[in-house]
């Protein structure tokens, strides 16, 4: 079955206000071009979920006022330091923050992947994370006396939003060892995917390639986007554009600088 193929604007148009979207960390395959198109649409009230951490995508979405809730184990720009628009939003309490921990986010997604309402997880008990989350409950291991264990409520995003190096006309998407993208796709109601290249053949026909491929079944719609992760890089592909990322971090220190940066980028994109 052929995939639904759209352009970036068409993909972005599928994300309604208040959608819950799962995003990969900066070192995975991030659909930065799609995120810019979502921002350009002026979407509001998003609930963004870091799988398990967020970076530039989140900072730009937050800075642009698209985000109501951030659920993640961390927001970091890595070697570029703290995320400025995220930091500002936290200080002004303009976003709801759900601080989590990496394996709890994976566990919540795995629960949705399995169609179960929760997933047990070791650790976490006694942390302030646990005390501040009402979607986590400490319950008893039914197989042991006096063995409390964390139950993490299932996390079912409306959309998994990510980039990939390769896809095919059937919507099969190759992500290699970046298997958190497959987990996101399984857990989400649907996935919106950009790919460096969309080929005519079927990626599943090659048994070696198939092992790292998300079947089209999980992919709602697809757009080709060369350099779609820019200014981030993609593993095994191109490096991050460090100068551009540094320029962003510098400009995004202030709300005005951030607005100028985003306006400039939209202008560039339109040219």
């Amino acid at each position, binding site marked *: 079955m052929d995939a639904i193929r759209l352009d970036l604007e068409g993909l972005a148009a599928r994300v309604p206000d208040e959608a819950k979207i799962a995003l990969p960390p900066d070192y995975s395959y991030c659909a930065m071009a799609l995120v810019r198109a979502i921002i350009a649409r002026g979407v509001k009230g998003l609930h963004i979920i870091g799988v398990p951490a967020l970076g530039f995508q989140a900072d730009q979405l937050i800075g642009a006022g698209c985000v109501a809730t951030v659920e*993640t184990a961390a927001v970091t720009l890595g070697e570029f330091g703290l995320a400025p628009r995220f930091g500002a939003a*936290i200080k002004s309490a303009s976003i709801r923050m759900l601080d989590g921990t990496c394996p709890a986010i994976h566990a919540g997604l795995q629960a949705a992947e399995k169609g179960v309402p929760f997933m047990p997880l070791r650790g976490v008990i006694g942390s302030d994370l646990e005390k501040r989350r009402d979607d986590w409950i400490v319950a008893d291991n039914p197989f042991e006396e006096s063995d409390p264990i964390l139950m993490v409520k299932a996390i079912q995003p409306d959309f998994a939003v990510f980039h990939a190096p390769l896809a095919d006309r059937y919507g099969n998407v190759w992500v290699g060892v970046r*298997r958190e993208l*497959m987990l996101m796709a399984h857990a989400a109601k649907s996935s919106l995917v950009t790919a460096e290249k969309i080929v005519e053949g079927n990626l599943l026909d090659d048994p070696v390639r198939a092992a790292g491929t998300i079947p089209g079944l999980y992919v709602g719609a697809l757009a080709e986007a060369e350099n779609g992760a820019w200014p981030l890089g993609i593993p095994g592909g191109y490096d991050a554009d460090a100068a551009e990322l540094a320029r962003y971090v510098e400009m995004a220190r202030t709300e005005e600088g951030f607005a100028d940066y985003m306006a400039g980028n939209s202008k560039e994109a339109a040219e």
Partner: protein
Amino acid sequence: MSNLKDIRAEEILISAIAEMLDGLPHIAVGASSPVPGAAAMLARARHPEKTRVSVLGSEKNNFFTDGGKELFDCAGQGRIDAFFLGGAQIDGQANINLVSVGDPDRPKVRFPGSFGSAYMYFTVPRVILFRLEHTPRTLVEKVDFISAPGTSEPHVYRPGGPYALITDRCLFSFDREKGVFRLASVHPGHTVEEIREQTGFEYDEPAEVPETPLPDAETLAVIRGSVAEQLAEIYPAFAAEVFGLGKAA
């Protein structure tokens, strides 16, 4: 014997940490920790047929093939023996804070977040806390937010926990029974009095506190040789600064 003048502070830390990792089957390192990363690589260089190292964010030192969850699953299986955690604040009960200073709902400072700490601290037997800024601001009496608690009630499943805390001034070991740190050694050039002054929490101090040993010549050669080279792939800025190594373009 090595001479202090020739030895960088980082090399003393690397060597001291590697001692605590000696012979462990599997050491995992988070992405932004060059000194622990180097220590793990040194430990591996000493026991190449016994010790594996996983470094998040490294392509050459990361053999995981099941996505972001595998590191944590692996720890849950008991297949990770040592891990490193930092903390914007660390307190005397070994609680760590990676979230914020002040009221978490209106924080004065916001940090990236807890990452996997709340889990790895419970599941990895030997968690080494690593904090280069040793001041009363970072080593506090009580953290403002517990990302991961240092100790747990006895009935809470916890094969893992804090093993030591290494800073730019000294090395503390952690007594899990008593739930307190103990000053284990003071790095060359620092003093017991300075530690007392710069530490915001109570800890046990033995009558005699040894100096943190300097790496011997052989260790230094390995650090500056194969370890520095491997480090350059993952932490190019650090390798350039500390070892003068450039990253191949």
